[in-house]
């Protein structure tokens, strides 16, 4: 290998600084969440304790965060499943031209770029004028889908741009029906990407704020609850909560990445040995 040019070291240093910039603040509140009972929102640390984590578990101290967490979790799972199913169907549809495909594509792009507060306001107004109750599992669920579905669709485009159609042709030549082709050929091939779509669906929903703001009704989701805390909580308890939710997000990402890895290994084992001269 040729020696590294000077530019490599400069760029590497820049990259390290960038990663520090990216993670530094989060790590800082991670440390500060172990602040002693007397300590404040900034350094110095006045002792090390689990005081603020304990505070979180006493509900009256900080509002209904566990209820909010449960709602966000359920909503995230609802959005995740819906996003995967709807995105795959739409992804399949977009492989061919169909009436209105261009319009639908531009609607999805609009859904991605529209200022989130407009979705919140519009959905809120409709439910209000129709006299429907605003609930996180109804209005909030729909509003969040306008955020997750375009991501799911774009991932499906990326997937099908790289999809080798000869697999399907082979299946059809063997007499598979359209459904059998999708069920036994297309879906298994795209499965790892679907884990990616699911990850987007869940985490974008779990962290969503602006589109849920006016559509969650009287019960807050976790990000709304946290934002509410920023205005009236002045103790490190908010850091403790931030640290816990970040850890939870990291756990979710880890689970999904592990899912991709396991699936890859299972496939390598169960894959065909055709052409390997066994």
């Amino acid at each position, binding site marked *: 290998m040729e020696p590294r040019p000077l530019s490599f070291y400069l*760029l590497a240093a*820049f990259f390290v600084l*960038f990663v520090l910039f990216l993670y530094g603040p989060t790590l800082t509140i991670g440390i500060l969440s172990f602040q002693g009972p007397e300590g404040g*929102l900034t350094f110095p640390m006045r002792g090390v304790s689990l005081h603020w984590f304990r505070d979180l578990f006493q509900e009256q101290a900080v509002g209904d965060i566990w209820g909010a967490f449960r709602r966000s979790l359920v909503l995230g799972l609802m959005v995740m499943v819906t996003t995967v199913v709807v995105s795959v169907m739409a992804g399949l549809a977009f492989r061919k031209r169909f009436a209105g495909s261009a319009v639908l594509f531009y*609607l999805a792009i609009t859904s991605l770029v529209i*200022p989130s507060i407009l979705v919140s306001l519009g959905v809120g107004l409709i439910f209000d004028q129709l006299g429907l109750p605003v609930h996180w599992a109804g209005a909030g669920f729909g509003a969040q889908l306008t955020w997750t579905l375009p991501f799911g669709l774009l991932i499906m*485009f990326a997937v099908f741009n790289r999809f080798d159609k000869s697999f399907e042709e082979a299946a059809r030549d063997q007499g598979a029906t359209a459904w059998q082709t999708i069920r036994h050929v297309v879906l298994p091939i795209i499965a790892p990407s679907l884990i990616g779509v699911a990850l987007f669906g869940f985490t974008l929903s779990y962290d969503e704020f602006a589109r849920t703001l006016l559509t969650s009704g009287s019960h807050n989701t976790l990000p709304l609850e946290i934002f509410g805390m920023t205005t009236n909580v002045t103790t490190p308890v908010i850091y403790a909560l931030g640290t816990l939710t970040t850890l939870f*997000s990291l756990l979710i990402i880890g689970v999904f990445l592990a899912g991709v890895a396991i699936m890859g290994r299972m496939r390598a084992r169960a894959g065909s040995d055709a052409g390997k001269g066994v």
Partner: protein
Amino acid sequence: MRINGSLPGWVQAAPLALVMLAFLVAPIVMIGVVSFWQATEFSIIPAFTLENYEFLFASPVTWKVFLATFKYAAITWALTLSIGFTVAYFLAFHVRSQNMQIALFLLCTIPFWTSNIIRMISWIPFLGRNGIANQTLISWGVIDQPLEWLLYSDFSVILAFVHLYTLCMVVPIFNTMMRIDRSLLEAARDAGASGVQTLVNVILPLTKPGIMIGTIFVVTLVMGDFITVRFMSGSQSANVGRLISNDIALLQYPSAAATSIVLLATVLIVIGILLRFVNIRKEL
């Protein structure tokens, strides 16, 4: 003939279309309608009026706030693009092993999947009056007094934007760079191009689609934002999103709706222009 019973495209696309109609098109139409309604202090009245728009365009605040919104978008765009391009360039062309590339790329994308609000809150212990930045600068003897403009200022707003959204630049630019045929770089070198010349004349033009997609994300996220500006400026600065959310808080829905329509039109015009330079579907 569909002997196999394969579903026609529009049936497969129907769920997506339904969600878009119910939660995107209908809300926009509703906002459009309400923007022509009247409001009292407590309720909105479905009676046609142009007052909301007249007031909006006549108010100097509107122009100032729109200008501020463009300012935030432009500065954030320039910073995220320079940082994002540099990081993606390093990952794509200077990291040699593919596993290392994937690992470092994941490292850059993980924060995207964590809460934006928490990431904003994380700046408080850094930038506050007694925060790490001020303490460090004082201990180094650079300043004697804590800097007041670190937190709750335009500086902190833009810092937070860059912190939140640089990833949206890194990912598409990296994606485009990875698809550049490496033999083009060799050809440039064989033809006598220096590293900088290759970067400017070969890599940069070929990376344009990625830059455009990143630009679309960053510009729309910043222009539509209301929460970062409110939180990081300590309610001292305003952008259009905040104008809307303030009206909503005061239950002035028709006024909020009129501002929303103007903001939406602005964003769509900007995106329409950007989309002329890139075919999103082809680039994924």
